């Protein structure tokens, strides 16, 4: 019911008019957009616009929107879970190209999803604007005059009394005003009082629907100007907020690199605690990263704790703790006995017990003769080692019994090729694996302090200790406040729209021949709530107390005697 003049009145009108005029079916049906009758392009346009802005279209579009959101939850989404999406593609080689063409791997950015919500919002705009105009007009105008026959309304009371007509009308108006109705008294023609209340309902509806635009804008601004990035930081290491420092950086379409605020932090330490017993043994109970941060270069350094759900907020950006893991600290010596590489190497967790995989690269190692022959190690880090039939595994996420299991390669690590390399993988295409005398791959399990000597005196690796790392998501979304305030407005508008009752009350006083007057009180509430019935009854009671019916009044139009009913 979004066509302008019908909006505010339709519900009331169908109730007021239908019993009297018997045109319930006509006023009850959706105002059909007039079919274009050879009106040319302008007529067609008008027709399309009218169709688009009907409530029925809004309803259908809402259903379409719900439907359109479904596939994105069933098919892994490229942006959110790239690994699962790739896996899904592999497992469904026939289906994947079709889904790809339909945009099912990126539903919420697909043109058809956009089409649905944009149409919905166009429809919404076409709805809000005329409704607002209509609402303002309603506020400016007087409450509508009483319908011709009040006793046809569902809630009414009629009685005769002997008193002055004007006095009854003024008293009625006064009673209504005290109940905070907007009141209009018509002393001249009809001799009636009209009151209306609950204008906040429509206001709430308009605020709610307008706030939806606020949300849409917030979402758009967020995806255009927001930035997010991830960074893995080792204990003791630092991070400064520039694009080059990120492991992974996703700026919004229109975000510029200078929108990054110049803050920085050092990860002083990370600690995690895990449940030691019970059915959820090994489940984490807390993660805490201790940071020391500065708002800008050279600024004062401050300490902060970052936990899951408790980000650090610096200058409009937020630093979230999103992951953690271990970094074995090793020293690699080459064939000459020189230190070829030293430090912690971050290993990436593979399961909830933090069985982690990683690599250690010493590209500049020399062999015994002094020739360059890079060394590369790859393997597992197990915080609490357990050897099962499936091989090496970790049985608990804390470092109760840490073991590093490594194999080794030598040759060209390919790090000078200029091509970007994954720091967590070993490109062994131009390398050869060290082997035991029997030809099986050379591998060794090391506990902290252990040393691994490579065959043929090619070098060694010592496992010096363990550090932890934490990974952070650093996000800046300039539209968070807009989104929040739109939601608040939406919630308030919705409550007003659903809980405020809009209702009208009329009192008519007709002179009768005997010098008496016939008083009729009636109310109308399109929601048909009981409260309105009670309200009308209370008003009638109060009015009747002041202008009672004389004893001789005909009983049938008076208050019925209290009636007792048993009800199940």
């Amino acid at each position: 019911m979004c066509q302008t003049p019908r909006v505010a009145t339709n519900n009331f009108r169908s109730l007021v008019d239908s019993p009297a005029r018997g045109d319930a079916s006509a006023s009850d049906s959706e105002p059909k957009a007039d079919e274009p009758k050879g009106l040319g392009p302008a007529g067609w346009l008008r027709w399309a616009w009218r169709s688009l802005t009907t409530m029925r279209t809004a309803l259908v579009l809402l259903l379409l929107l719900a439907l359109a959101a479904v596939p994105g939850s069933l098919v892994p989404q490229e942006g959110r879970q790239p690994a699962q999406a790739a896996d899904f593609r592999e497992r469904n080689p026939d289906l994947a190209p079709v889904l790809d063409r339909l945009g099912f791997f990126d539903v919420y950015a697909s043109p058809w999803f956009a089409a649905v919500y944009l149409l919905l919002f166009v429809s919404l705009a076409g709805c809000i604007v005329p409704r607002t105009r209509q609402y303002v007009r309603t506020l400016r105008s007087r409450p509508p005059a009483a319908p011709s026959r009040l006793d046809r309304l569902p809630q009414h009371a009629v009685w005769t009394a002997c008193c002055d007509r004007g006095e009854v009308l003024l008293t009625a108006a006064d009673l209504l005003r005290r109940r905070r109705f907007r009141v209009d008294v018509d002393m001249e023609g009809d001799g009636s009082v009209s009151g209306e209340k609950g204008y906040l309902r429509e206001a709430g509806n308009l605020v709610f629907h307008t706030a939806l635009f606020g949300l849409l804008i917030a979402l758009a601004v967020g995806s255009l100007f927001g930035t997010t990035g991830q960074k893995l930081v080792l204990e003791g290491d630092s991070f400064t907020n520039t694009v080059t420092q990120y492991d992974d950086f996703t700026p919004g379409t229109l975000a510029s690199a200078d929108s990054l605020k110049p803050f920085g932090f050092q990860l002083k330490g990370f600690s995690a605690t895990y449940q030691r017993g019970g059915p959820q043994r090994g489940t984490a109970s807390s993660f805490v990263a201790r940071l020391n941060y500065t708002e800008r270069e050279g600024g004062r350094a401050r300490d902060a704790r970052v936990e899951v759900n408790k980000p650090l907020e610096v200058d409009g950006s937020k630093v979230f703790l999103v992951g953690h893991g271990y970094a074995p600290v090793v020293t690699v010596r080459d064939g000459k006995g020189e230190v070829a590489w030293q430090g912690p190497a971050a290993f990436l967790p593979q399961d909830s017990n933090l069985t982690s995989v990683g690599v250690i690269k010493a590209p500049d190692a020399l062999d015994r003769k002094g020739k360059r022959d890079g060394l590369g190690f790859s393997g597992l880090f197990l915080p609490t080692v357990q050897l099962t039939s499936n091989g090496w595994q970790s049985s608990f996420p804390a470092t109760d019994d840490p073991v590093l299991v490594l194999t080794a390669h030598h040759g060209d690590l390919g790090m000078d090729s200029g091509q970007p390399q994954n720091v967590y993988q070993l490109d062994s295409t131009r390398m050869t694996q060290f082997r035991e005398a029997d030809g099986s791959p050379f591998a060794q399990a090391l506990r902290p302090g252990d040393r691994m000597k490579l065959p043929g005196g090619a070098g060694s690796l010592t496992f010096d200790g363990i550090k932890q790392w934490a990974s952070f998501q650093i996000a800046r979304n300039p539209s968070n406040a807009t989104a929040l305030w739109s939601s608040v407005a939406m919630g308030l508008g919705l409550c007003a729209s659903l809980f405020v009752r809009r209702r009208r009350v009329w009192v008519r006083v007709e002179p009768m021949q005997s010098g008496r007057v016939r008083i009729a009180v009636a109310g109308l509430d399109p929601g048909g709530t009981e409260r309105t019935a009670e309200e009308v009854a209370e008003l009638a009671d109060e009015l009747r107390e002041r202008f009672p019916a004389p004893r001789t009044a005909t009983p049938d139009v008076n208050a019925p005697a209290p009636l007792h009913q048993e009800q199940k």
Partner: protein
Amino acid sequence: MSGTSLADQNLAQLANWLMYSAIAVYLLAFVAACAEWAFGSRGPGIRTSAASPAKQQTPVARTGGRTRSAAVDGATGSSTQVLAPPATASPEPAQALGGDGTGAAGDSPKADLVGRIAVSLTVLALLLHSGSVLARGLAVSRPPWGNMYEFSTAFALMASAAYVGLLAARKPVRWLGVPVLFSVLLTLGLAVSVLYVDSAQLVPALHSYWLWIHVSAAIISGGVFHTAAVVSILYLVRDRWERAVAAGHGQGRGAGLWRRLPSSRTLDKLAYRLTGLVFPLWTFAVIAGAVWAEAAWGRYWGWDPKETWAFITWVAYAAYLHARATAGWKGRRAAVLGLVAFATFVFNYYGVNILITGLHSYGGLPTN
């Protein structure tokens, strides 16, 4: 950190015993509620008749006098009321089938007694059930809705509380007992048999006061949406029957049951009221979830499956509310939409937790 002390384990044990007791009492209540229908007279059933305006039961007359009602049997929460309809209430156009049925007991006092017993048992079961949820919460020192078992029991609690709440508000809804108790029993049965996990601490992602806010709002909404869905189903049944009768197909075999239900109009309105009542709360639950997501992951909306289905549920209920205001969609189509919306709510819980993995996978079910 060793999670569970002895006292906590005892509390957890107590929670389990209370849960089994609650299920047993719900079962008895369910049997009693069925018995009320079975023993209830098939009698005249329809209260409204043009011949006796004094007995007219228009919706207005029925609850309009609520404020003046007296003599309510509070102990059983029974809805027997002495009502004085407001002076202004005028009879609605009398339709043969437009009136409300007499309820499950019909005019039989014996069945009425059984019905009251069913309500008393439901209240008792609700108390045991609340005790169980409370004990579980105390055992783990956190809101007891951290995994699917806990969420299911809390949801069933709200479903049953919504029903008892309506009775306590003197709404004549005893006829809701059978279907509500049925789904409460189903949910609890599923919870204790399939979804059960021992009490345990939460993963850090759930350490947040937003858990209280967001999940409580979602569970309460769920309980009321559930009631609305049950009413919608009954509406569809009753409406079909009314249409069949109006079309001259006779009253049919189920008439003894259907005629005792409230009129389709009353049912439709009740379903709408309940939905309209909690829709803002559900909206709030979704927004609170977004605020929490922002605090936990740095984005308030990321189309995670759980978020996506919360959105779908929200849009579906918005569509239902629109349908109610759109001619041609009122009534049956709107009711079906309401049921679809509830189905999406249920799917968001069971379907998404079990079938789809996302950031919200904290159901606590063993994974294979």
